[in-house]
């Protein structure tokens, strides 16, 4: 992991903001998001529904088609600014250097074309392979993602596959042009739990053999713990905490991350009541000027009316005014209470 950070990042996002003009006023879906993705690194972006994680990824590649959207900041892919490029200029990036996997494999493929046709279409958009070459590559890819009998399945339609198998096809499609970066938008959310685990295993395996960097968007801390090297925790469009996966999961700093981790069911502790974060996510139309999490935070202080900046050390930063001593005190109390509850 330290190797990864030494290299030039594959993706470098600085101060990305996405604002929609709505009738109720500006809606800031993403607000000042900055992160890097190193070579072969798996970055997890985690947050509740509506925290702006998907919008952030889509906006980078011009996939937000709303005419009322304003996107500012900088997104560099391999050192080249890609924010604000035209569709035509983005064509070689999309699907070529950056592959995407979507949340719902049921609707992600055009229903009227055979899956092989759809993979071939992508390969031929980015290379000058012949149809026959692209087709044999498609069969190869389907085999690699674990679809049995790929030679037959290549001529099947999307609706003839199960959800998990369809997601494998989507992954095969995303990998078809050997992307340097793979963006996976909740790739396991629409699948059942056993299939989820298989898909995550597959992604880890393929990441090793293809050497792509991955940005995985999820609301599931379990997924993060499974695959990610580094984590960005988002709340209300803002980064709340960024750090290495081990540090964020074992020693979370931000009260919101505490809540998220508490909301993961565990099998090793019996009858543990799931912790929920009190309140509901803020409406993106009126995010507080201070800390966005302030209204739901149990440890709110006077200073929280001012917006906290990301601070911390060792590559593990968070946006919270709590001092290190306060955090230690709160966490030890929580542990004591947790034990007392059981």
């Amino acid at each position, binding site marked *: 992991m330290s190797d990864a950070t030494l290299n030039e990042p594959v993706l470098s996002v600085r101060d990305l903001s996405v604002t929609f003009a709505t009738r109720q006023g500006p809606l800031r879906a993403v607000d000042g998001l900055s992160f890097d993705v190193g070579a072969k690194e798996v970055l997890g972006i985690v947050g509740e529904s509506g925290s702006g994680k998907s919008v952030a990824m889509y906006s980078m590649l011009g*996939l937000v088609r709303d005419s009322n959207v304003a996107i500012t900041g900088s997104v560099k892919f391999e050192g080249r600014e890609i924010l604000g490029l035209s569709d035509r200029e983005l064509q070689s990036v999309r699907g070529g250097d950056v592959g*995407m996997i979507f949340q719902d494999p049921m*609707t992600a493929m055009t229903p009227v074309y055979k899956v092989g046709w759809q993979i071939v279409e992508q390969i031929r958009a980015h290379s000058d392979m012949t149809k026959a070459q692209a087709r044999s590559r498609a069969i190869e890819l389907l085999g690699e993602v674990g679809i049995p009998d790929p030679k037959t399945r290549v001529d099947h339609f999307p609706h003839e596959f199960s959800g998990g198998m369809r997601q494998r096809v989507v992954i095969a499609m995303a990998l078809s042009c050997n992307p340097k970066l793979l963006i996976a938008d909740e790739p396991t959310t629409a699948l059942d739990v056993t299939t989820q685990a298989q898909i995550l295993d597959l992604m880890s395996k393929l990441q090793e053999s293809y050497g792509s960097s991955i940005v995985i968007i999820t609301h599931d801390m379990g997924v993060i713990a499974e695959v990610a090297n580094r984590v960005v925790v988002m709340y209300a469009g803002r980064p709340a905490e960024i750090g290495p996966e081990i540090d964020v999961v074992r020693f979370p700093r931000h009260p919101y991350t505490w809540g998220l981790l508490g909301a993961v069911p565990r099998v090793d502790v019996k009858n543990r009541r799931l912790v929920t974060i009190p309140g509901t996510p803020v409406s993106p139309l009126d995010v507080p000027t201070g800390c966005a999490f302030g209204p739901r935070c149990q440890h709110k202080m006077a200073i929280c009316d001012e917006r906290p900046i990301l601070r911390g050390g060792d590559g593990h930063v968070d946006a919270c005014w709590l001092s290190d001593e306060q955090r230690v005190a709160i966490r030890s109390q929580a542990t004591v209470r947790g034990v007392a509850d059981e």
Partner: protein
Amino acid sequence: MLRFILRRFASAVVVLFTISVMVYLIFFATPGVDPAARIAGRSASPAVVEQVRIAFGLNRPLPIRYLLMMDHLFIKRDLTSYVNIGDKVVPQILAAAPVTLSLVLGAVVIWLIVGVLGGLVAAANKGKFIDPLIMFLGIAAVSVPAYWLGEVVNLITQNELHSSVFAWLPAPGWVPLTQSPGEWALHLLFPWLTLAALYAGIYARVLRAELVNALNEDYVRTARAKGLSERRILLRHALRCSLISITSLFGLDVGALVGGAALLTEVVFGLPGVGLLTYNALENLDLPVIMGTVMYGAFFIVLASAVVDVVYALLDPRVRIV
């Protein structure tokens, strides 16, 4: 697939049979409608009416009468009109059918080109000036009745301007394609445009709505994320999927028009098509002609819907029955 097609056409035959029975019952077995009295004429004596009844087999049981009618209509093809005694029904329809087919098929080509282009341009430029403009033209074309538009067209092209700007245009009427293709097209030009205007408007609007929906689908986002060109996304993905619902609309429209629904255009432009024939038969309550034209119309509508189902299955793999 072949089994599906065969099954679909077998059920079409059943539907046609049912229609023929129902139409027969409506026109020949409804109390108050006495075919014998109509054939015998207005001032015929009861004895003459009775004679006619026996001569035409109208005193026999209903199922037999139905079978006799079908025999005359489809097998012997010698069913004659009750009003213009001696006029055979089937040759009349066969003479009218090419007129209607010429009118409808020409209009189909025009309305498909204009409608699909209009829908595509409007959907691709959603929110820009051209989109509401096309939609306005579409609603205007839909709202104008064909007989009014036809009359206005005749007024412009056949009146004072006929000696100057429209001197090249022949008087309204019908010239068979086999006689002179040029004259055929020239005579049909404005009928085509008049008939196509309504449908081009409908199709542009329906297709735009379908495309706008399709462009919001996940698979379009996937297509974009694959790095395809906007043009390819619009034509190969969004349009391809929108065609599925347009097809059913199209099949039924063409079936109905060939079956006689182009009546208004035929009347305005003096084209002796099936619509006109049906219209005249209804005015005179000419039962055999009505029976014939209704069966003819039903045939095309049922045929069209069977063809639509087959094309539908070809277009959408999800409805294919293996």
